[in-house]
């Protein structure tokens, strides 16, 4: 069979599309994109520069290495989630099934992936260099870029479906965990460890360049063999990401990830615990089926220690946000009920009873997580003496209710009036959605004060936090649910 040139087909598609557009429309879009980048860059370039390149490097080398390890793991997972070889949805529907050369069809995607990985690696290396090295090594960003490209080629091979694909994903999670652990150790212990990058950076660049070149040659040769289903999956991901960005609706992506996760799992029906309220029992079943999330929560207990040297209120906010994340492990059920109350109508419970039953597991998780995190900070000497574990438990309802509120937000309301500012107008719907749940964390203010004071924790302080949390749960249930309504939202 003769293959048609992809270039010709793509040129024809572009010409046909251009025929439907106004003259100069593409150029106009390009101009506006450039203008947008210039304006945003002009507004925040100082902040970006301060993050990537602080004037005086203060981080220890262990922090730099740990960050690099975690970054490599995160980059690998991001590349795997995105494909890394992806096509647009129209191309996956029409060109993937057409008699065109698959290698030429996929080559531009490979180019984009290499470019993205290289830029990410270079910026990461630049940031680490700026934070760690007193005497910068000019070649380090190149090393970062090459390292990222090697990571990309591993992800590319994994996309083609190897026996080690799942293992490599797990290894990437381990890299992230190891990197975070290194960061925690670095901030908790005062390590004096130094290394000189100058001695090994050039040989390392040489070695990585060789591996990257070999990887590129192998990838281009085997590009056409990437299975169709993997490319279609990546095309769906790309399309969903575009939808989410265009509609400012991040839940599209969360739903897709959730759907894919369960589609891969093989489940066996279990009995719901008969002694517990039915929706709480369902949440516990969901929790049991996400053991990895529990493991992450357990590991995450150490993360607030990263802020040991930050102001105490930052530390307190980190613990509160951690509680919100911990409480969110089972709130996918609340999100489902918010999106479509069909099952709630089938069940026939009032919204108050449903939300109360659904809040139990989030509150317990948030409580235990906060207690563990505060105890850890106490043991590390960051927090003075006192019953910190009890304060953590008292924070449970705050984190739990915040997580439930976040899950009940539903879709972003893009119909709200935009807010006019001197720098232009922006939509407030996404802003409200982003802060839903986080606002409830304000009820943890007593804890912020208690941690911020820096003195030993008193029992009275715990009592105040517990009272505020209990009142908050009561007010939340009374204000947002009803005994005579099944649906979670009132219309």
């Amino acid at each position: 069979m003769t293959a048609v040139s992809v270039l010709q087909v793509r040129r024809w598609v572009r010409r046909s599309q251009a025929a439907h557009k106004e003259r100069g429309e593409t150029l106009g879009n390009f101009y506006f994109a450039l203008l947008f980048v210039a304006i945003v860059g002009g507004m925040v370039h100082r902040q970006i520069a301060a993050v990537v390149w602080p004037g005086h490097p203060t981080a220890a080398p262990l922090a730099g290495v740990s960050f690099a390890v975690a970054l490599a793991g995160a980059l690998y997972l991001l590349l795997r989630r995105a494909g890394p070889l992806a096509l647009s949805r129209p191309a996956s529907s029409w060109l993937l099934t057409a008699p065109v050369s698959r290698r030429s069809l996929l080559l531009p995607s490979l180019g984009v992936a290499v470019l993205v990985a290289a830029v990410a690696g270079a910026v990461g290396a630049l940031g680490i260099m700026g934070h760690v090295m007193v005497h910068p090594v000019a070649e380090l960003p190149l090393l970062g870029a090459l390292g990222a490209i090697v990571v990309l080629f591993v992800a590319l091979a994994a996309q083609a479906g190897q026996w080690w694909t799942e293992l490599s994903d797990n290894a990437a999670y381990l890299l992230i965990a190891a990197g975070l652990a290194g960061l925690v150790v670095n901030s908790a212990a005062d390590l004096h460890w130094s290394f000189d990058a100058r001695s090994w950076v050039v040989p390392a660049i040489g070695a990585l360049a060789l591996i990257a070149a070999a990887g590129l040659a192998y990838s281009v040769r085997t590009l056409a063999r990437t299975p169709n289903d993997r490319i279609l999956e990546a095309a769906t991901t790309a399309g969903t990401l575009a939808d989410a960005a265009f509609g400012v609706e991040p839940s599209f992506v969360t739903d897709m990830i959730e759907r894919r996760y369960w589609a891969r799992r093989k489940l066996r029906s279990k009995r719901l615990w008969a002694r517990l309220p039915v929706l709480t029992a369902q949440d516990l079943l969901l929790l049991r089926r996400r053991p990895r999330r529990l493991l992450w929560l357990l590991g995450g207990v150490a993360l607030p220690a990263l802020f040991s040297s930050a102001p105490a209120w930052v530390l307190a906010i980190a613990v509160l946000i951690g509680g919100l994340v911990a409480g969110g492990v089972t709130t996918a059920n609340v999100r489902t009920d918010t999106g479509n109350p069909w099952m709630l109508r089938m069940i026939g419970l009032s919204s108050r009873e449903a939300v109360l039953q659904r809040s139990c597991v989030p509150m317990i998780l948030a409580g235990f997580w906060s207690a563990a995190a505060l105890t850890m900070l106490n043991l590390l000497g960051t927090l003075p003496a006192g019953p910190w574990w009890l304060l953590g438990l008292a924070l449970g309802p705050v984190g739990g209710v915040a997580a439930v509120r976040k899950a009940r937000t539903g879709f972003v309301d893009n119909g709200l009036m935009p807010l006019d500012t001197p720098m232009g107008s922006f939509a407030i719907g996404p802003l409200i959605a982003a802060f839903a749940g986080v606002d409830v964390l304000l009820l943890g203010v007593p804890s912020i004060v208690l941690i911020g004071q820096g003195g030993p924790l008193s029992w009275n302080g715990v009592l105040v936090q517990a009272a505020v949390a209990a009142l908050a749960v009561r007010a939340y249930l009374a204000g947002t649910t009803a005994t005579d309504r099944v649906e979670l939202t009132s219309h």
Partner: protein
Amino acid sequence: MDRTAVEVRSLTVSYGSTPVLVEVDLTVPLGAGVCITGENGIGKSTLLRCISSLQRPDSGEIEVFGGPPGSTPEFWRAVATTVEPPTWYPGLTCREHAELVCRAHGLDPDDAGVDEALERFGLSGHADAIPPSMSSGQKQRLTLALVLLRPSRLLILDEPEQRLDPEGRATVAAMLAGYHAGGGSILMASHDDTFATAAGTSLIGMAELHTLPA
């Protein structure tokens, strides 16, 4: 004691300038089965949505068991419907969905016959599957299984025969007939007269419900 399950008087609904229901009257006596028939777009689903309180009519009165339909737990404990497309909980199998519905209504899943219901609907081989992974026909069977498993006094079903194979239609019709024989009321819309008759419902044309010409 209410004598009627559903009472609709002078119901009017328009979509924009297009009237769909004009002065519609309908009575479903307690324990009766009524099947509304008619071509696509004549307003069957709109009528069922209004009766299920999922859509607000422009004017007219609706009573379900002597009271206005609403979103109260009491209403939804008495009424089970398939008028809306179902949603499924993440990471919950078919059997667990059925058990959840039974337990929420205070029923023991074994006494309620969850396994038998899945078997009768041809889903016993899919008890451990998550609903989104099943075909549209299987999802329709599961929806009907859930509706029939839970206690209710009125079923409001929109084309329950949709997406079912002939064997599935016969099973569902027999189960609806059993529900009807047990004293339950049924209001449904269907395009399959044979199915509706087998389910023990009496047919009524949508056009006959309009007291004024549309």
